[in-house]
């Protein structure tokens, strides 16, 4: 990918729409405070960071290690289990975990795909076209980001109830057909960074708006589309409230709701005997796919987050 197509999310603070190459900005900084504080003094920093890293990572290690322990040893705080137990068979046996897992995968995937498409349409419109009411409509989109979901949650439920679609999975992904304010904002910034000449040239070649969107805007926006895609996968994978509101049959559950059900059933609070080894194995199954997603799309995650801060 050429430098011109770098993810050049417009630097909000300066308000300029000219493409910038982040690396160049980064490089300017090197050697500044580093020359003053770097070098010799970095050893204590490394020790400090290593200690904090343990705090950051230990819960994962604890969880994975405990998932291989028998019930009596769960809290023994050994990293290597003294007695090994295979709790994963139990998790799959006591609950339709495989179904939940599959549900989460397809709902996340479909939802993310739809929100990428719908948000791109809207973002492209605000980035490329001039039309009456553009400024006001865009301000309205930004304003909806402030709205707590709690305000619309109840009437939206009643709509789905009216449609007879409560206790189906439609309410979990259909709203993604309509774009999402934050993603629209993110993608618009990106589309604004595409040189206008590209579109002019495409028009010369006989492209109309529709083909221009697909042939020029979308391919060049690929880094931003990936950011939106992984963010939405994560959001869907994290979501407990929506499934909690809409789903009743356990066959329809997503993984977070399923895990919560297991916790209620086997944790001490729910009158269970505290069979934590099963709950922990379920937790690992919920966490692990996100770790894999992060391993694959680390750049997209970090870049997307870093961009948020420049919204100004």
């Amino acid at each position, binding site marked *: 990918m050429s430098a011109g197509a770098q993810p050049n999310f417009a630097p909000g*603070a300066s*308000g300029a729409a000219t493409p910038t190459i982040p690396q160049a900005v980064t490089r*300017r*900084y*090197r050697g*500044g*405070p580093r020359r*003053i*504080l770097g070098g010799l003094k970095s050893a204590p920093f*490394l020790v400090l*960071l290593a200690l904090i*890293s343990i705090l*950051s*990572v230990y*819960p994962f290690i*604890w*969880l994975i290690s*405990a998932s291989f322990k028998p019930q009596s040893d769960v809290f023994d*705080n050994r990293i290597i289990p003294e007695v090994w137990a295979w709790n994963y068979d139990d998790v799959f046996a006591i609950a339709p975990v495989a179904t939940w897992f599959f549900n989460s995968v397809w709902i996340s995937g479909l939802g993310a795909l739809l929100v990428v498409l719908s948000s791109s*349409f*809207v973002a492209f*419109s*605000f980035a490329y076209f*001039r039309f009456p009411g*553009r*400024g006001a409509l865009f301000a309205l*989109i*930004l304003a909806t980001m*402030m*709205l707590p979901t*709690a*305000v619309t949650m*109840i*009437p939206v*439920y*009643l709509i789905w109830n009216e449609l007879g679609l409560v206790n189906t999975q439609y309410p979990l992904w259909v709203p993604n057909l*309509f774009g999402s304010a934050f993603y629209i*904002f993110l993608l618009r*910034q990106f589309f604004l960074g595409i040189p206008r000449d590209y*579109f002019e040239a495409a*028009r010369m070649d006989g492209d109309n*708006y529709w083909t221009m969107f697909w042939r020029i805007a979308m391919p060049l926006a690929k880094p931003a589309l990936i950011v939106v895609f992984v963010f939405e996968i994560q959001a869907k994978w*994290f979501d*407990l*409230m929506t499934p*909690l*509101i809409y789903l009743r049959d356990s066959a329809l559950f997503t993984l*977070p709701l399923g895990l*919560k059900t297991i916790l*209620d059933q086997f944790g001490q609070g729910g*009158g269970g005997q505290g069979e934590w080894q099963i709950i922990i194995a379920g*937790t690992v199954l919920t966490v692990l796919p996100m*770790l894999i*997603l*992060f391993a694959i799309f*680390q750049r997209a995650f970090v870049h997307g987050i*870093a961009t*948020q*801060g420049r919204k*100004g």
Partner: protein
Amino acid sequence: MTSVAHSTTVPGPRRGARRSFSRFLRAETWAAYAFILPWAIGFIALTAGPMAASLYFSLTNYGVEQIAGFAATEYVGAANYRQVLEDEKIRTSLYNTLFYTVLSVPAKMAVALGLAMILARLLRFAGFFRTVFYLPDITPPVAIGIMLLLLFNGSVGIVNTVLGWFGIPGPFWTTDPNWIKPSLVIMSVWTIGGTMVIYLAALKSVPRHLYEAAAMDGAKPWRQFKDVTLPMISPALFFTFIILTIAGLQTFTEVYTAYFGTGSAGAESPDAALMNVVYLFRQAFEFFNMGYASAMAWLLFVIIMIVTAIQFVVSRRFVFYQGEKR
């Protein structure tokens, strides 16, 4: 905001011959609206319409009987709002939510900034540590709620075990009403990766010549931090301040997972963990008091608006936007 302002300066397609101008403009306008259509439909059906409906419901007795059609929906005026203001549980839940937000937001910001400052200066391994500190942020909140119960378990949890090494008898974090919220705050500081990455990006975009000029003038590291770094990254600080506050005021999943449930667990749910949105959720979807819950939702909305407005007003003095007259 700058983004809105600068959208008006973006040039449209270059105009062709004058005579086709109006026709072209019309085609463009229609195309633009067509591309916006998905959002427009969603906005009307899932945001604006429901907001109006929610406002209406908040003035009615809409509940389980009305949903089922056994009883008529009655207009009750401001009764729900009066009840909201008198409800002890709402007072508790608001106190809990504010307590949590007021402690967790500054704590998260401080830790994230500290780590970002160190990482920005690191000669090596900065990428590695960034990844490590980001990991907690990709943990599903349900899993975080479960981890909270496990790690902070009063008798066998690792937190109290470690405290025990130093001779400190740890409290019963997850059952003692005085320690439930502090443990939630501590757990929330675990997920600072995103905030840290934002600060890191902001720190890296501070021009080096500012530090050189400051050093030339004899500014010590603390002065450089106070008079160069902080103003230059203040937009990022402000942004995270707003976002974290709004998120904090709507805390739900971790708390609900750990302390609330549909089974008998619900009966033992401690009031000390009752967050605003948790209580709202239970009123709406466990007790189906939709009218009452709608009134609660509007109260939450007003609170968020007020808090955000205060943040904006106060921050105007501290946030420095480069290249912009404020």
